[in-house]
């Protein structure tokens, strides 16, 4: 226990010292994660809204696929993206392998089904309430999707949060397509894995503390926003 306490004290000291390497890793982690979540929301929110609001052939199959993809194994996604981006792959010419962009692509693939499937559920419930009013007002399909996404915005923050949680904690896919290269593709999770294996527990634990702090802060902020929206009857 003394050993753990000492390591924790060293880790907190490292955070407070403003270590530039640590800051670089945290910065890249946030950049990759937030970019992936933004892309996943750009794809998943309208996709989920369309599946939730409309009846069309193949809707049930699409729903099953989206739900199944929520549990995609990250290493499998990493492997697939690796094969696509490797020199012999169809997108190898882009030279994206072992870059933050490759990591963003992998995380986007992982997070999009989560965002889409959860959005579908939120929008489906809201559409059941709005459907007849939309028809009565003569709202077109695009107008419906936009209205549902806007009116569900506070609930969808929670959806985005679920995607953020998945992305920020992800290690398997990003280590395969990013390569964990120092000062290039090294993010918090891959550094924790590496430094733990090397026995550098202070840095690993310091990153773990930062990761937990980010997750708690983002969750608290979103929950507070949603609670205020509920009080104002917007949610």
């Amino acid at each position, binding site marked *: 226990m003394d050993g753990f306490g000492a390591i924790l004290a060293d880790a907190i000291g490292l955070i407070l010292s403003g270590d530039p390497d640590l800051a670089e890793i945290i910065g890249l982690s946030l950049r990759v994660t937030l970019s992936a979540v933004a892309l996943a929301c750009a794809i998943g929110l309208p996709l989920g809204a369309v599946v939730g609001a409309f009846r069309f052939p193949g809707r049930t199959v699409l729903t099953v696929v989206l739900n199944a993809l929520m549990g995609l194994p990250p290493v499998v996604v990493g492997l697939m993206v690796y094969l696509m981006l490797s020199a012999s792959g169809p997108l190898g010419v882009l030279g994206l392998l072992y870059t933050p962009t490759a990591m963003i692509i992998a995380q986007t693939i992982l997070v999009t089904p989560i965002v889409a499937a959860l959005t579908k559920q939120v929008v489906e419930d809201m559409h059941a309430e709005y459907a007849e009013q939309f028809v009565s007002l*003569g709202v077109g399909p695009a107008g419906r999707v936009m209205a549902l996404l806007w009116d569900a915005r506070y609930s969808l923050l929670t959806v985005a949060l679920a995607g953020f949680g998945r992305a920020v904690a992800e290690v398997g896919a990003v280590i395969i397509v990013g390569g964990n290269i120092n000062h290039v593709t090294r993010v918090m999770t891959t550094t924790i894995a590496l430094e733990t294996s090397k026995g550098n527990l202070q840095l690993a634990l310091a990153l773990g503390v930062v990761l937990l702090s980010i997750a708690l802060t983002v969750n608290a902020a979103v929950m507070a926003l949603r609670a205020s929206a509920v009080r104002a009857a*917007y949610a």
Partner: protein
Amino acid sequence: MHDVALELIDDSGQTRPADSRAGTILEARGLSFDAGGQRLIDDVTLPIRQGRRTVLLGPNGAGKSLLLRLLHGLIAPSEGAVLWRGRPLDRTARRAQAMVFQRPVLLRRSVLANIRFALGARGMRGAERRARAAEALETARLTDLARRPARVLSGGEQQRLALVRALACEPEILLLDEPTSSLDPASTHAIEDLINAANARGVSVLLITHDLGQARRMGDDLVFLHGGRVAETGDLRQCLRTPQSEPLRAWLDGRLHFDQATS
């Protein structure tokens, strides 16, 4: 029994049979609707006349709300057709109608944004939309609440908002499904004033109510529905004074509360 052909009151105050097609704005022709192996609306043929206030009465389960939804094109009939000015009701024709539901469906936005959304759905933009929305708020005496979330309004305010949102779209007919069923007398009075003002501007009204007093205040024509069929129709005052059908007599006597035929 008063037949499906409506009656008009002439200048001397006497009733006379009306040509069922004359001045018809909305019409159900042989309309039937089946669900769960039951026929809930059964061969309803009904002209709704332009500029009139038609009250749809009947016991619970008679199919009043269902008929209103069919007439508005929210659901498709199993048989028959809904005609708008003699032509099949389509999406364009539905834009000439507006419906207010028993429980107002308000978006999770401000009062003003609710009206702006409805106007936007009709293709209205910019200054015209702002002016029309402001006018609607003024009409409903909701201007002071324009920025407030619509869902925190009182029941009466919510229903007023739903009504002026519908009226802001300048419909030719207003379809109202028990709009005052859960409101206090003051709120009911405010809603009735708005409906009457719209009717005075030429908007036809088709109103479902369970309130006989409201029916007398608000109705010109009566349609009494029983078991998914039109049991009686005609001039409202005459029908209520001398009901010709047994279902309407029973309902007025308080012997018919729930429609067994569709339960």
